[in-house]
């Protein structure tokens, strides 16, 4: 553990083999990006990524060989929690009208709307389905998915297929095939 890691990593006796500082340095950017795909606001994604690492620091059990899988799972869950919270609030505030609005021809706005549609569908899916889809789209293998979500590797294919079907069904129900 180097000197700059002392504030968080060095003040406590954690697993001697686990280097918190190195893990932060190597993984922070990627974890922030995972969250930023789910939540709209990049600044908020960065803050949530910090929370994920703070949670890692607080959880000695998560530190060690499985830390990376744990970080991905926590990042996706953190992002989805934030997404659901915002979706609920927007629903109450009647601000979700934009998802039913006719798309404008402007490409930027269309892209933003497409993102919001995907996010909205992820927010209403079963948490396990949404987690699987997001982690898979981050490039995790079946084995890595099984480790991250504490699932049996043999059932990942089946679960992923169900999650994809659920996503497609929900999306088409709301927005059509496009």
């Amino acid at each position, binding site marked *: 553990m180097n000197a700059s890691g002392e*504030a968080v990593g060095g003040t406590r006796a954690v697993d001697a083999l686990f280097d918190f500082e190195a893990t*932060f340095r190597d993984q*922070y950017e990627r974890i922030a990006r995972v969250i930023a795909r789910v939540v709209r606001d990049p600044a908020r994604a960065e803050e949530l990524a910090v929370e994920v*690492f703070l949670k890692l*620091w607080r959880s000695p059990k998560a530190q060690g060989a499985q830390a990376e899988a744990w970080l991905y799972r926590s990042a996706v869950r953190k992002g989805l929690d934030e997404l659901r919270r915002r979706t609920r609030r927007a629903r109450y505030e009647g601000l979700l009208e934009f998802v039913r609005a006719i798309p404008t021809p402007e490409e930027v706005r269309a892209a933003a709307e497409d*993102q919001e549609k995907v996010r909205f569908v992820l927010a209403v899916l079963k948490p396990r389905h949404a987690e699987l889809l*997001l982690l898979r789209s981050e490039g995790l293998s079946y084995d890595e998915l099984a480790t991250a979500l504490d699932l049996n590797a043999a059932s990942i294919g089946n679960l992923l297929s169900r999650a994809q079907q659920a*996503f497609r069904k929900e999306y088409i129900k709301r927005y059509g095939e496009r």
Partner: protein
Amino acid sequence: MANDSELNIDRWVESHLAKLDRAGEWRPDVTRARARLDERHAAELLRRRKVTWVLAAVLAGCTGLLAFPAPRAIAQRCVGACESLFLERANTAPGGAPALAPDFSLKDADGAVIRLSDYRGKVVLLNFWATWCPPCRVEIPWFEQFQRTYGSQGFAVIGVSMDEDGWNAVRPYMESNKISYRIVIGDRALAQKYGGVASLPETLLIDRDGRIAARHAGIVGKSDYESEIVRMLEK
């Protein structure tokens, strides 16, 4: 065909999720995040330290308060009330019938053995008391009077002294106060059998079937006792 369909769905979902990828040059600021993490970590350590100090202060305050007689008495009374409430429930058998009073066999001031079960058929007032306990001393003349008045109708008082000095403290007190009802010396084991006697006096009224009909922690009015005794004798 099914495989094609699955493949198509796989691609379809993948293409939709790909829309989440951020365009442009956005990059998370690792340096700022590092500083923020240290800041949050320091705040958390400070909060934990504060909580520890507050808990230590509360504990020290409570311990200090218990050094004074009045708060200690109040605390004992509260504990006693909780225990008696618990015991009241515990002493109620399923179906709501009062539970049997635990039997005991102890010697009185003359060395004669007193067995509670020998009193079956009588109404018994079982009084846990001590010579150093002022409210207990208030009640003793009442019990003496109840024994004289209702003794012939199948009523008996048994005093259980919890004095640590045993007969050395109790015998002189009995003589100087002319206590005629029977007294035994109790101990922690007996108190435990009765669900723990956290405060004194503590008095139980046991019906003719040997069941605990009432339990009072602390001093209770003389007339209240008397009306309960009369009612139990009439049953």
